[in-house]
């Protein structure tokens, strides 16, 4: 690379640090989407026939659906027939353990700051990495295995634990749920699977790192987390993608099942490429995430820090079926330049004495649009349901927008539902106050924004919280002054 190019790349990567791509040989499906492609994917993955049938059924359903347009985002619809639905780094054979993974792949993840080496043990995090379409390696499998915990790629789970997959796949997010969920069901390539047996408290954070590398590729991963009765797990998800001019599609599905007295904590730091300053390129992030508190006294907690993507369409939700079950949603969504985010949650109270808590903090800068969309639904037999929602928006500059769409739907008169909302601007007064104490403007913005988002950031595991704070500051760099 010439020196000029190197400098250019350095400059660009300041805007989006993970905007590089790597060339290595890939196994790719032909471009386009039809039944043959689905068969191709299924064959490639050596899948059993029940899964192929499931995919084809989803494809039929999807064909009868239209892309939703109720969200508060505008974008050019993608031509799905021009997309490639499967791309995998070529490997001569499936790696058995970390030592057999292509060193070039490991180098990629090290560049991302994820060391796959067992050194991660020190930090107590087990990682499953998904590059483009396939899961590359899962660390700590053995350590976890001793406790009966299964943590592996989705494909592997299909082979090794078909009974679990058949039982839970599509249980929380049925293929008929929505356009993107149906699409995902038809073409999903890989993802992570996690099973925590009864009474086991997972001793380390489980983590998935997603990265889209190849051009014109959609990433359709599926994550399935099953926490059996009285178990506990904390799960982390991180995302990056290279910087490309054209938009890339990411349509994932995450399903969580929590048995009686089980607790699942799911944290996301989403840093997909947001597009450049002029709104060119970036990831379309159309994701369906949902958990069911199936057993009594179970708890599911979503925490998300959304800084990337050109368009985000995402509503991690909880179905509170078990009595006394608890659902939580903590979110910070930052948009800058031309980013658009329409994100929020659904809390569906079915069981008695169920509780939910929603804390949403939107930050809009540049010419971006940031919407909170949330639904609290209390069903007829959900006696004494409680909900508290807090929905704050912070605006920077005068060209951005913040919107709030709260829906409340109550069918039981004993419900107690509270909704609080605020909108504020980062004041010049606040910045001047910081300046006057010797704090530079960029640092003042970071300080104020992190203070604003603190309640959510506090929910993240320590290591993630630090990364998230840095990301917030980086995303908003140059948006004031």
């Amino acid at each position, binding site marked *: 690379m010439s020196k000029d190019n190197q400098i250019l790349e350095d400059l660009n990567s300041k805007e989006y640090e993970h905007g590089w791509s790597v060339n290595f040989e890939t196994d790719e499906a032909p471009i386009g989407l039809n039944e043959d492609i689905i068969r191709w994917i299924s064959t490639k993955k050596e899948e059993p026939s029940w899964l192929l049938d499931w995919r084809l059924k989803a494809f039929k359903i999807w064909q009868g659906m239209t892309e939703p347009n109720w969200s508060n985002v505008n974008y050019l619809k993608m031509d799905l027939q021009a997309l490639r639905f499967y791309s995998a780094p070529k490997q001569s054979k499936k790696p058995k353990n970390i030592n057999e993974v292509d060193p070039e792949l490991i180098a990629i993840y090290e560049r991302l700051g994820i060391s796959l080496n067992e050194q991660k043990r020190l930090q107590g995090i087990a990682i499953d990495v998904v590059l483009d379409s396939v899961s590359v390696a899962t660390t700590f499998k053995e350590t976890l295995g001793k406790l009966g915990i299964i943590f592996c790629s989705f494909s592997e789970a299909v082979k090794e634990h078909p009974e679990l997959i058949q039982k839970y796949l599509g249980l929380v997010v049925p293929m008929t749920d929505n356009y993107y969920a149906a699409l995902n069901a038809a073409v999903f390539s890989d993802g992570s699977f996690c099973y925590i047996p009864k009474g086991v408290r997972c001793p380390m954070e489980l983590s998935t790192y997603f990265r889209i590398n190849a051009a014109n590729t959609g990433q359709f991963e599926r994550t399935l987390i099953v926490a059996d009765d009285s178990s506990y797990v904390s799960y982390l998800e991180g995302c990056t993608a290279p910087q490309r001019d054209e938009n890339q599609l990411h349509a994932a599905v995450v399903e969580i099942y929590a048995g009686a007295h089980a607790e699942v904590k799911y944290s996301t730091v989403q840093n997909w490429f947001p597009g450049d300053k002029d709104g060119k390129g970036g990831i379309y992030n159309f994701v369906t995430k949902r958990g069911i508190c199936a057993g009594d006294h179970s708890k599911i907690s979503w925490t998300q820090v959304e800084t990337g993507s050109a368009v985000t369409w995402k509503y991690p939700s909880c179905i509170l079926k078990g009595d006394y079950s608890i659902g939580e949603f903590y979110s910070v969504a930052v948009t800058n330049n031309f980013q658009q985010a329409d994100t929020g949650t659904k809390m569906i109270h079915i069981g008695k004495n169920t509780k939910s808590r929603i804390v949403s903090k939107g930050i809009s800068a540049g010419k971006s649009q940031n919407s909170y969309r949330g639904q609290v639904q209390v069903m007829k037999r959900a006696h004494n349901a409680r909900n508290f929602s807090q929905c704050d928006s912070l605006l920077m500059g005068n060209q951005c927008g913040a919107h709030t769409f709260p829906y409340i739907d109550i069918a039981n008169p004993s419900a107690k539902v509270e909704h609080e909302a605020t909108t504020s601007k980062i*004041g*010049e*007064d*606040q910045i*001047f*106050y*910081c*300046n*006057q*104490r*010797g*704090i*530079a*403007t960029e*640092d003042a913005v970071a*300080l*104020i924004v*992190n*203070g*604003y*988002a*603190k*309640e959510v950031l506090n929910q993240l595991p320590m290591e993630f919280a630090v990364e998230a704070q840095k990301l917030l500051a980086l995303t908003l760099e140059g948006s004031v002054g």
Partner: protein
Amino acid sequence: MLSIKNLHASIEGTPILRGINLEVKAGEVHAIMGPNGSGKSTLASVLAGREEYEVTEGEVLFQGKELLPLSPEDRARKGVFLAFQYPIEIPGVSTTNFLRTALNQVREYRGQEPLDAVKFLSLMKEKMALVEIDQKLLSRSLNEGFSGGEKKRNEIFQMAMLNPILSILDETDSGLDIDALRIVSNGVNKLKSDKNATIVVTHYQRLLDYIVPDFVHVLYKGRIVKSGTKELALELEEKGYDWIKEEVDSTATV
């Protein structure tokens, strides 16, 4: 230390300061008094570098160097401190965290190592005693839900932590009851040395019973129209500002 020469400043085209001249030496306390709207707070803001004000004429030397071209943060780092009349709230940011960020940026600017948590905490403990401030207050969000007295005490606490060369107290007495006034003034007095200087901007003489000034200046219509010693403040307390206004306005019409 501070030398203000023929300073003119306006906001949105309206002139507020119309030729201020003032010399402040190390070890001195200067009181700036004057009726409402005379430009007292504007002077404080201009010295601190607030952007809304446009300096149209004149210069300010701080320790022999031009102050006005510097950004507000660089002025602060060089040792200019403004105790705000209305301290700003920053939700989710504790005073401790705020001050640690500030102090370390100031230290970095001066080529000093950042303070580690232990050293920072012991410095805090030392300065807390000075303004009788409770540690609990410092772990709460900065100024959020603070009483008027707590806010002002917090300003003086910050001043103690940052150890400025020139402190400007903008109406620090407003909204304080007599006990808080005593505590705040004690803090300011203990911070006084022969190396630093203080400018006290106030409407009332009351504060000057506690912080005794070496010089008193009366600001009116954007100019210093009378200077004297602390006796001038007492005279103002007794007679009000009208006689000065008359004196000035009649000279102006002649």
